[in-house]
């Protein structure tokens, strides 16, 4: 904390009274010029250096998830291009507006919001600061202000790849899916996963069946565990989740029962090294790295949503594959490659899945 206070004091000292700010930083959003010394060094280096700031959601910058990965992409911008990158942590939902304002006052050229929870706050900030560029991870809008870019991921594509792995790894011929709250976006996880299983069935001459269930919650670990237990009792021996905190319960159940689990969003192997065989990845760091450059260079205009997939290397499967035979891992990478080239077009809802199966 001491370090943070000192840093923010230095960063803001020119504009306002240092004392007020130290107290603001201490009790308010907890601003930190991240990357500490390295960031300020590159900041003073060259004329025309771009300043990019990201606002974390309430998970904080070390959340072992989106925020942490976003910051990794930001740091890459700093080291590769010499940009001045920093982050501001949000402690609670009400911090979003304040932190966005703070980033604007700080003279940022581009401001990233991480997570859909910040959707409305970022939109408001974009409307009231038309000359600053904004972008947000994992949220899309119906009517973007011209300076706001929404970034989403083709979750069906990474789900397809892990579905393929699941079908190859099951010995019982039955695999499961545990979903969070049913919605159009979440459907893409489920249907993409099923499509991957069907694809493997066709390719390998298997007849793997699948079942899925929605927990109607993203935070109920006990429920995730219970659903997983019921699927395991039903004969499933590879389970995939797209259910956030509910999914931790699923992984726990798999670990206890000695069956395989598949993680989501990030490499979740650390949660159960003996159970998690792979994870469906959203490469948030790649998204930040690429989109930031395109927005700053003007190659991409704001005001639209972008959906990144395998073609942009923004989704894929985890590198950890200790539990997978090399053949399966390599075949899965080959599947990702085919998606990348457009040889496989992954369905993202039940109707598309039907026609996908028919076309196999």
């Amino acid at each position, binding site marked *: 904390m001491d370090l943070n206070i000192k840093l923010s004091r230095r960063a803001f000292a020119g504009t306002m009274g240092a004392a007020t700010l130290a107290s603001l930083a201490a009790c308010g959003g907890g601003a930190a010029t991240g990357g500490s010394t390295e960031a300020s060094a590159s900041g003073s280096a060259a004329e025309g250096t771009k300043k990019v700031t990201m606002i974390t959601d309430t998970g904080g910058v070390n959340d072992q998830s989106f925020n942490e990965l976003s910051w990794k992409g930001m740091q890459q911008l700093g080291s590769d291009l010499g940009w001045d990158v920093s982050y501001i942590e949000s402690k609670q939902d009400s911090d979003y507006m304040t932190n966005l304002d703070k980033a604007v006052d700080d003279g940022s050229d581009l401001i990233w919001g991480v997570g859909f929870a910040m959707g409305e706050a970022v939109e408001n900030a974009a409307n009231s600061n038309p000359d600053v560029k904004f972008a947000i991870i994992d949220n899309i809008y119906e009517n973007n202000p011209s300076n706001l870019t929404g970034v989403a991921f083709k979750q069906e594509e990474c789900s397809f790849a892990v579905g393929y792995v699941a079908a190859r790894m099951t010995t019982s011929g039955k695999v499961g899916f545990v979903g969070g709250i049913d919605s159009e976006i979440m459907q893409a996880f489920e249907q993409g996963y099923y499509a991957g299983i069907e694809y493997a069935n066709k390719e390998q001459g298997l007849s793997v069946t699948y079942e899925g*269930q929605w927990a109607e919650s993203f935070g109920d670990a*006990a429920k995730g565990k*219970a*659903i997983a*237990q*019921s699927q395991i009792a*039903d004969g499933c021996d590879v389970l995939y989740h797209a259910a956030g*905190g509910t999914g*931790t319960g699923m992984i726990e159940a798999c670990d206890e029962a000695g069956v395989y689990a598949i993680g989501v969003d990030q490499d979740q192997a650390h949660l159960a090294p003996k159970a998690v065989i792979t994870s469906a990845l959203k490469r948030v760091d790649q998204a930040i790295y690429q989109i930031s450059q395109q927005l700053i260079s003007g190659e991409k205009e704001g005001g639209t949503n972008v959906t990144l997939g395998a073609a942009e290397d923004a989704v894929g499967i985890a590198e950890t594959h200790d539990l997978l035979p090399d053949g399966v891992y390599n075949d899965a990478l080959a599947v990702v490659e085919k998606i990348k080239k457009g040889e496989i077009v992954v369905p993202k809802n039940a109707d598309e899945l039907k026609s996908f199966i028919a076309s196999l």
Partner: protein
Amino acid sequence: MLTNLLLLIGITLMYSTPLVFGALGGVISERSGVTNIGIEGMMVIGAIAGAATSYFTNNPWIAFLVAGLSGGLVALLHAVASVSFAADQTVSGVAINLLAPGIALFVCRRLFDGAAMTPIVAKLPKIFGESAFAGTAYAGLNLNITTVLALVATLAVWFVLYKTKWGLRVRAVGEHPAAADTLGINVYKTRYICVILSGVFAGFGGASMTIAIISQFTQTAISGHGFIALAAVIFGKWTPQGAYGACLLFGCTQALTILLGGGSFPVPSTILAMLPYAMTIIVLILFVGRSAAPKADGVPYIKGSR
């Protein structure tokens, strides 16, 4: 069929365990006349204390005890405010509910390099060993040890409240503290002990989530369990056995939503999501009848006041 039945029992017991501990805490506190809305917050503290201690000591039993103690410590705040200072007990409880998740997150960030969740920690054992019956229909019956402890605790609380002198005093203090006071019962001391005990139980409840059901603390590990436990207290007419039954009912409805929502003929999950609430209302109307709180519940006792 047998598989489903065993699964139903297993899930019911797993789901209800943290609720039972929370509800026992609620019963003890409220029987002595102190409303404890703060059960949720105390469970959160127990959850982080349990997971963090288990991580650093690698001994889940010590962690379980520490979780109880931390819950008791937070309850002490509630006791000071509501017994000594005769503050509004609801406000004090709400304050604890607001404070606890903040403290939990702060502690977690300090101890684990700024992460909002702990790493995987050592878990309490299951009654038949770690992976007994794995892959068989009986897997669900390999209960967490906490499930057994919850039943034992319920019996103990029942015994103490109804079969011992001290239990009679607790109930007297909750019904009519002035009368109890004139008979020489120390109302403040009794209430202090009961409120602290309620925190200890709530702490156990939190830990039975983070070091038994799952094996890490996350921000959503305890989300609303304390409030469901309080509902179970009212539902169970402020008795330990009634609250236990209510928790089982809540657990059972959850298990039903899971079993009905899976398999070959799934019922839409949105319809199932309302099942626990619908069933609660039906049972409340048909079987429970009038539920009356202890007379002095929520009323601070001030010596000599009329």
